[in-house]
């Protein structure tokens, strides 16, 4: 990517014996939003902190618009950061918090005040300018923190799990707002999260991290439909793992033979079929020896758990309307969506 705004080259970070980042390479294009997604301890926050200058890399380079910024202290990097924990200065009002970065840049008082109000309006809090932190809800505090990070017109906006402390509804609203703002301002952004749905919903590209390395970086669609590794396949989306046998491009699974040509090692014989919950359709079949154990109503969709004759459980996600007649104890057959089928060597 020639127009990359930010680039991490072979960045390595060790904490005593543990390797937090293992020669990590990442390029983020100008105006792009890239999510770093991975389980706890995969190194995603460490990578973000190294970009912000709050931590140092043991090896490797951090390049900003082609310039090596490794030696630049945090306060000279012009990065806007929103933290997981509430980070507003409690002795300042919302407006003063937003204006703080501008004050550090010696912007005039009037301009600071105008920008702060403009940004608070942008994040939907025009009437909260004079409120202190303890007078704001968690969601409002994160909005102010976002406005504060954007006020300095950052080179890169760094979001470190900014929504994880919020309740579900606020989280969904705010993530959409973050994306809307990011697109309208064109700010290059890195979004760290462990929530795959969040990462998929807001990003241009998602980098799935594991053990200090990026397993795959791709658009949410590509990542979901064509995972490059078993880890990505298992981490992104909800997967059933079902014992199966592979012969050529065919897979013998749940008593049926289906086509299987997607990812997985070039192997024959016993394999584990990876089937997404939404790729399993449950249909009534009185002759079948597969039985529904539970059906959970989740609004537009329902989650059905069926038990195979060997005791293994298979989860499926179907529209609530389609699955309305299904009840626990019903005998059913399971149909797999062949185009969505993945497999890996049996463990």
């Amino acid at each position: 990517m020639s127009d990359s705004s930010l680039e991490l080259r072979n960045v390595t970070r060790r904490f005593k014996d543990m390797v937090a980042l293992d020669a990590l390479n990442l390029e983020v294009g100008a105006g792009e939003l890239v999510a770093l997604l991975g389980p706890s301890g995969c190194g995603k926050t460490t990578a973000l902190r190294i970009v912000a200058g709050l931590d140092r890399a043991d090896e490797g380079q951090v390049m900003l618009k082609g310039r090596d910024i490794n030696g630049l202290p945090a306060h000279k990097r012009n990065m806007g950061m929103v933290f997981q924990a509430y980070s507003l200065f409690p002795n300042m009002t919302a407006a003063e918090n937003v204006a703080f970065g501008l004050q550090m840049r010696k912007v005039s008082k009037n301009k600071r005040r105008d920008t702060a109000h403009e940004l608070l309006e942008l994040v939907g809090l025009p009437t909260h300018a004079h409120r202190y932190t303890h007078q704001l809800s968690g969601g409002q505090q994160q909005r102010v923190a976002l406005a504060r990070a954007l006020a300095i017109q950052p080179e890169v906006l760094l979001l470190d799990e900014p929504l994880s402390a919020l309740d579900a509804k606020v989280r969904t609203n705010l993530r959409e707002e973050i994306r809307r703002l990011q697109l309208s301002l064109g700010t290059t952004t890195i979004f760290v999260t462990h929530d795959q749905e969040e990462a998929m919903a807001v990003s241009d590209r998602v980098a799935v991290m594991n053990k200090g390395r990026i397993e795959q970086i791709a658009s949410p669609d590509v990542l979901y439909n064509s995972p490059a590794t078993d880890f990505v396949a298992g981490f992104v989306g909800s997967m059933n793992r079902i014992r199966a046998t592979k012969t050529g491009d065919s897979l013998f699974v749940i008593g049926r033979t289906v086509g299987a040509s997607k990812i997985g090692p070039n192997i024959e014989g016993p394999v584990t079929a990876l089937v997404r919950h939404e790729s399993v359709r449950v249909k009534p079949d009185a002759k079948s020896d597969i039985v529904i154990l539970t059906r959970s109503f989740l609004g537009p969709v329902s989650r059905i758990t069926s038990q195979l004759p060997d005791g293994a459980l298979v989860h499926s996600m179907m529209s609530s309307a389609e699955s309305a007649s299904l009840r626990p104890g019903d005998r059913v057959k399971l149909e797999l969506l062949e185009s969505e089928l993945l497999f890996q060597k049996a463990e």
Partner: protein
Amino acid sequence: MFAKLKNLPLGIVLFISGVFVLLPLGSAAEFSLRQPASNDHGLNNYLWIFEQPEFAHYIGISIALASVASLILLVLLVPTVVWLNLKGQKLRPFVDFITLMPLVIPVVALAIGAQNSLPEFAQTNQFILSFLYAVLAMPYAYRTLDTGLKAIPLKTISEAARGLGANWFVAIFRVITPVIRGTVLSALFMSLALSFGEYTVTSLLHWDTFTTWVTVISQQNVMGAIALSVFSLLAIFIFLLLVGLLAKPATSQALKEEE
């Protein structure tokens, strides 16, 4: 009724403590107001204090010394305790130990040590007392600041400040210190009060301050000396009250503006 009974033990404890503290104070105040000549009560003893020509001089010296001592202590301790909480966890036992020393070493030993080891130019300047007062107040100020800093998300706040363009100096003195304003004021008050009332080191190093002057003057007029003690207590109480008011977050005005 039940709620009232539940608070009864607390009430009894507060009452006993109140009597224990307030009774001697009240008695001292009453005694200081006695006017034996006219056999009634009045402010004569208090007026006598202000009539003393050295009163303003010594109180001025003591305030100056205590202020410098407090300033030294805060400038030294705030960055140190911030650093300890952010990055210096390994050194914490060592710093804890060092800051306990002034409580362990007898004040006489400190004074004699200072007299023997300090260079002459330092010994001839009364402000050397401020440095010694700072040492004596360190155990209390250090622990107060440490507790205050532990109560806030120090790491996130300092990183947020640095990310927004504040260097360490600005982050500590313009962001972190105002956040722990109450704690800083408590530490400040403690060191001011301790420095203001310090007697042993001052006397052993042959300097005169308000406390040594009070000791001398009390030999001339016992009732005046009691009035002086009550006056000092009241002054400290008012000072505490001011600290408490200053430490309150200034939210009401901001809300009024919005309304």
